[in-house]
């Protein structure tokens, strides 16, 4: 360090000299870089946490389902809409619920994907929670009964999970939902569900790791776990990744960027697909898991899944209701599917709510949607429909019955 002049003020040439790059030892460069990086990471983690940034991680790999919610995770969702809530200790996008159903409780289970999950709105504004409130508000005016037993409380449990196919919802019902002993099952069918149920066997390498389904030659529904098996190493718990996923806001920010780029940038999507195929997993070690079957009719498989869900619900004396996500953009493929669904629902003994009609009847329909999902208004509309269905078709109201 040059010495100062008598009065401590430097002359111009010395100031210029001071700011010239001087060679540093490698050791000091390495130490300074590490220290700077360490403090930068700490700063960013704290700053992101304070500002609610990077908190959109909510899914973790799962060997059985492909993906599942992270239990107890605080999720600050900003990608579309806004919410800031915790996932429950059992990984539900809901408040805490016990397995054993309290006496007098009428329990409704909601199955579906991101539209049911409703991260785009606050938990209290999701159609499950709103329907629960609506039903409980009317308890005092009514004398509800189910199977002859009085109802003193309504509970709606949201099992919705982003990206879930109907096949995953079927598995969810068997392995998780049944444990809660619901009285009624509502499934919100969405665009893309039918495609997600079946595997494009020519494109296994790029397939999302999840269970797929097919219909065999005897028209029985079969499960294909070959993609799960092929990705077992990626789906297995990883302490480092799990820690980052659960705790690191920087990891969350990069994950969010990845999600955003995948949605918005076609070149990025293509690059990811290329890299995925390049690094595609080998065949599963157990050759029997690698099943081949004829190309599937997606709608046939979907119908089989829904039929299976309806049949299993009926065996367990549960009502099953199929709701269809509103086709407000007039997608012709979806419109064609919905034409089949109503008679199909009757055939399998399921109740049916066509949300398209309800939403299109709303003069301010656009307000009911964000970009891809329901707005708070949209959720409220679905909740009303759900509550009406429950009150009209699934339970009895002795006050109404007596007055008749």
């Amino acid at each position: 360090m040059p010495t100062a002049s008598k009065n401590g003020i430097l002359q111009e040439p010395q100031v210029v000299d001071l700011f010239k790059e001087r060679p540093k030892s490698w050791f000091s460069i390495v130490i300074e870089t590490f220290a700077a990086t360490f403090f930068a990471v700490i700063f960013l983690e704290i700053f992101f946490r304070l500002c609610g940034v990077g908190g959109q991680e909510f899914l973790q790999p799962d060997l059985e389902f492909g993906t599942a919610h992270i239990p107890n995770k605080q999720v600050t969702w900003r990608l579309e809409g806004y919410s800031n809530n915790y996932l429950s200790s059992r990984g539900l996008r809901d408040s805490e619920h016990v397995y054993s159903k309290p006496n007098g409780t009428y329990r409704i289970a909601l199955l579906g994907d991101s539209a049911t999950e409703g991260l785009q709105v606050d938990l209290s504004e999701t159609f499950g929670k709103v329907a629960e409130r609506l039903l409980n508000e009317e308890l005092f005016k009514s004398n509800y009964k189910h199977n002859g037993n009085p109802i003193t409380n309504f509970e709606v449990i949201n099992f919705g999970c982003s990206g879930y196919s109907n096949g995953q919802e079927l598995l969810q019902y068997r392995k998780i939902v049944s444990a809660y002993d619901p009285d009624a099952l509502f499934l919100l069918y969405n665009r893309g569900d039918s495609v997600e149920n079946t595997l494009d066997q020519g494109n296994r390498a790029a397939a999302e790791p999840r269970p797929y389904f097919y219909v065999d030659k005897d028209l029985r529904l079969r499960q294909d776990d070959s993609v799960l098996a092929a990705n077992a190493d990626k789906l297995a718990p990883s302490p480092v990744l799990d820690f980052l996923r659960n705790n690191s806001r920087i990891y969350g920010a990069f994950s969010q960027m990845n999600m955003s780029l995948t949605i918005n940038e076609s070149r990025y999507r293509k690059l990811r697909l290329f890299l995925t195929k390049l690094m595609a997993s080998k065949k599963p070690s157990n050759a029997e898991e690698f099943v081949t079957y004829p190309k599937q009719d997606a709608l046939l498989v979907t119908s089989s899944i829904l039929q299976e869900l309806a049949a299993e619900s009926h065996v367990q004396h549960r009502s099953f209701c199929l709701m269809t996500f509103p086709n407000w953009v007039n997608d012709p493929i979806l419109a064609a599917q919905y034409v089949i669904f109503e008679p199909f629902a009757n055939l399998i003994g399921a109740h049916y709510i066509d949300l398209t009609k309800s939403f299109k009847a709303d003069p301010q329909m656009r307000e009911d949607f964000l970009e891809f999902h329901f707005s708070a208004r949209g959720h409220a509309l679905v909740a009303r429909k759900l509550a009406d269905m429950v009150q009209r078709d699934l339970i009895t109201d002795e006050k109404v019955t007596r007055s008749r």
Partner: protein
Amino acid sequence: MLFNSFTYLVFLPFVVALHWALPERFRRPLLLAASYIFYMNWMPAYGLLILALTAVNFALGLAIAEQQNLRKRLLQLGLVFNIGALCFFKYANFLIDSALQTTHWLGAAARSEALLSVKFPEMNVILPLGISFFTFEFIHYIVDVYRGSKPVKNFFDFALFAAFFPSQIAGPIKRFQDFMHQLEHRLGFNSAEFRSGVFLILQGLFKKVVLGDNLGILVSYGFTHIGQLGMIDAWLAMAGFQFQIFFDFSGYTDIGRGSALLLGYKVPENFDWPFISANLTEFWRRWHISLSTWLRDYLFIPLGGSRGTPNTVRRNIMLTMTLGGLWHGAAWHYVLWGAFHGAGLMFSKDWHDFVSAKPLLAKMRESKVWHYSGVCITMLFLFIAGTIFRAATLADIGHMLERATSFTPSGGLTQLFLQSTFPACLAVYIAFLAVRVWLDNLDKHEVDLTVPVLKFLIWWDTSTHVRAVAYATVAVATIGFAPGKIAPFIYFQF
């Protein structure tokens, strides 16, 4: 190709690395090719358009310089050609729609079925990106050559001036003399300039992605739910848009200037703290500087400028600003915005003259109270002008202003604002600006060596590795605060 896109993230480092790796004689062809790839990435066919316009203007420039007898005619031809191209691509649909609406209105007024049933052919012309900017650069070129500047003799240099990708799509509007001077006096790699370039790009991305886009979400909500806004919500939406356009456009300019610096070129600044302006005249010296100086040099002054009677000057101001508004977009509310600014500038000038003529007022004008009152009034004017610019329809302008004066309680927009990351981002940006202003004003020559600040500055300036970590931190922060959807630059549409 957007500056804040994944493609540009790959494109820029590749071009920069290749540029400095190649010998000097290959660098300009590389930049020219890269600029055309950049432009044609959007629509390949329009690369021919920019090439054709370049060729014609290059030839015109040479001809104007050489043909002394015909130079005025050639200049007129050039102006007609460039303005004609701009009008065709930008205003054809607008003119046809306006003519049709006028005909139908006349038909309704006159109850004429013939007029009501008139149909004009639909043109559906796709607006080429950046046409407003590069036609203005061509007009500046041929006018300046006419006025005596030496024309560019090398076609490829001229083509590079026209297509230079850091400023191609949304300015700043360059002056060919400055650009050619840089081409002729190329220096080698300058690490200080390179560092400045990286810093500017990061700053620009932060302004555009973190501040502009996040604010854009709130503003968009406000302008699509006007009926549900309370008074504070309405002011938030109005002010929000003005700042959104600033962060968006100045962020873009920073990225453009930074990209140019990485290649060793300097592109003019476009913004100079516009919101500290005490009056509208000052604002237009600080906002979109390249456009306002272009309008001054090629429209206002040729019309007569500030010479002539007061009414002539007012006419010149009004015409310049109205056409400036029309330049922004083919819609009547842009024309209205320009006229609104024109009216404001006329008033500002008249007020300035009035105050100057009154000794007491002229003395009061020196006070800080007067100055800051002027800043507040100017900002209020800008918020209202911004509403005219942003509103989807003329009726929406009225609705928004009505909500802003309605004394109704806050609605969803204020809640959205408080839930968003924007307040935190703004706080960070303000803190950064405060440090920057303080550092800029810090006279290192007067500071005692023993002061810790100077020690830190010396260490900072001599530690490239630490600066790299700091820049990476800013980049990660930008990624974290970026909204989910990548929004294009507002000025792309012009």
